[in-house]
């Protein structure tokens, strides 16, 4: 945990400093003796810097190898990283491909990552779930899910 606390403190110190620099650029349009738009961000900046510095000191004073949360097993971590990668790709292609074409493979990929290995179940599960969700939200609840390249083909 020591290393993590130090990393977190340094990242947050950088974030606080960046936030403070951006705060200096905020417009000061206010009556005299009254707080303007930068007032609250300044309070936040001071709090972030002070608390990050405290965390850094705490991290440096911690014993080397102090206990932290138990890490996930390597296989689980790998699956989690894959899932995140699939998620990012899904969101990148969703506006262009449309809900149905993007969601079905995404759903199938997640099913596999969650341990479903039977191909027929994966394909059917992904297609049926995507279809139900599309019909339910697009036509049941009027959420304008993107049709993408299937525009004019799917209702």
């Amino acid at each position: 945990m020591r290393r993590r606390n130090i990393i977190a403190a340094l990242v947050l110190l950088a974030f606080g400093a960046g936030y403070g620099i951006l705060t200096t650029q905020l417009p000061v349009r206010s009556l005299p003796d009254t707080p303007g738009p930068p007032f609250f961000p300044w309070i936040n900046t001071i709090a972030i810097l002070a608390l990050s510095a405290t965390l850094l000191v705490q991290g440096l004073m911690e014993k080397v190898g102090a206990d932290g949360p138990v890490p996930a097993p390597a296989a689980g971590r790998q699956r989690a990283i894959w899932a995140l990668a699939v998620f990012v790709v899904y969101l990148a292609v969703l506006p262009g491909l449309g809900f149905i074409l993007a969601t079905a493979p995404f759903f199938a990929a997640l099913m596999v990552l969650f341990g479903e290995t039977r191909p027929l179940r994966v394909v059917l599960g992904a297609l049926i779930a995507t279809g139900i969700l599309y019909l339910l939200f697009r036509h049941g609840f009027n959420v304008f899910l993107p049709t993408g390249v299937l525009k004019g083909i799917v209702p």
Partner: protein
Amino acid sequence: MSPDVLAGIAQASGFLVLLTTALGVFIGLTVGMIPGMTISTGIIILLPVTFVLPADISIALLLGLYVGGMTGGSFSAVLLNIPGTPSASATALDGYPMSARGEAGRALGIAITASFIGGMVSFLCLLFIAPLLADVALSFRTEDMFALVFFGITIICSFAAQSLVKGLLSGVIGLAIVTIGQDPVMGSQRFTFGQVNLIGGIHFLTAMIGLFAIPQLVSNLADTTSAARIQTKLKSVLPRLADLRAIRMPITIGSLTGAFLGILPGAGGPIAAFISYDYTRRISKRREDFGKGAVEGVAAPESANNAVTGGALIPMMTLGIPGDPVTAILIGALIIHGLAPGPLMFTERGDFAFGLIFSFFWANIFNFIIALTALRVLVKLLATPRALLMPTVAVLCVIGAFALRNNFFDVYVMLFFGLVGLAMRWLDMPVVPLLLALVLGVPLEENLRVALTSSQGDISIFFSSPISVAFLSLSALSIIWSLRAARRRRMSAQSSSKESSS
């Protein structure tokens, strides 16, 4: 009876609203009992639906889920020794030993009965206390409101499980995030970087979906342990007369503790459940049976965690202060429908406010009926394959973020907050303070600046009103209490590490 109360009863008792309440309870019971799913995850699943449904139906659905989720958590606690929700942790202490000796049905029957009574006690508190508190809150001035919201913010300290500094940092990051967009007092833009999508700020529901659901999905993936199979066959779940006699006192303790702690922002279900369990054990004549399957050990925490629900709705409805993540989400859902919780809700939309209270009443009734009658079906749902459930949750997160404003920008913001949530989990930093700061940040800044503007920058305005002074004192007490608790934790950790090294 006032016209608002009658209108509220009529609103909550409409056929569609009742049907939705029952559906919400069913979903809540299901979500609550599936390990790895929380009530917050359940609400995230339903959020996109609530955007398009009328306000009364949406809130009935979410309240049903809230109430059902609390009871559902106890099912997996009793049957699998895995609490479905943190609030059901204390129930597992005696519920699972009962299940292990073949009395799962008896334990669940007691849990359901205790949940029902706890819920009804908290309904009565909500019905009678909320309007009175709203009346008092109407006389609050800006400085009082600031002090009140500041007190709400100090709840952050109580969520700082391991490190107070990390909890506070999480909260301050949330306060920094709410400064993105239009300044609440003067309307000038801050930190928008020329992005039109940022002018309206970051919607806290988008952030919440990312912060809660994505780390939950990833953690379920990382968890390689396969879902446990239920070995127990359920016999009768109706409690025996002797059991009902035995649980009278534990239920009384649990219900009152839960309702009271629910009103206090930040205390929440798990604390209420453990306090009432501990107190019931202390006064019990059969103290030695606790932990080995005592019916009292199931009844006290279950009544307490359900009593918390109504209690937590009191500060949410009357002051606009969320006591836990679920009430924070409920505030978001109300705001989506143009209904800002707070003292004005009872004067301007009294019919809706009482409608909400009576929907809570029905949610408890349905919870009792559905849990008792559909228990066998519900227990079978514990075997729902995660391979189907979790991808559905992932897609619903995307739909939820998109449906908020029909905008892909919100979906990317959701993913960003998902990554932030993962990073926070890696750093052992609590996300609840960030969420509460997202809800309370704007009123905190607005009231602070308006009060200081009216006093021309003189901070003594915050000490000029007894209400403000009272809330600031409570805030100080809350911080001191958290600091002392943090110190105790540190000392006990140090002493245990010394013991292990010697």
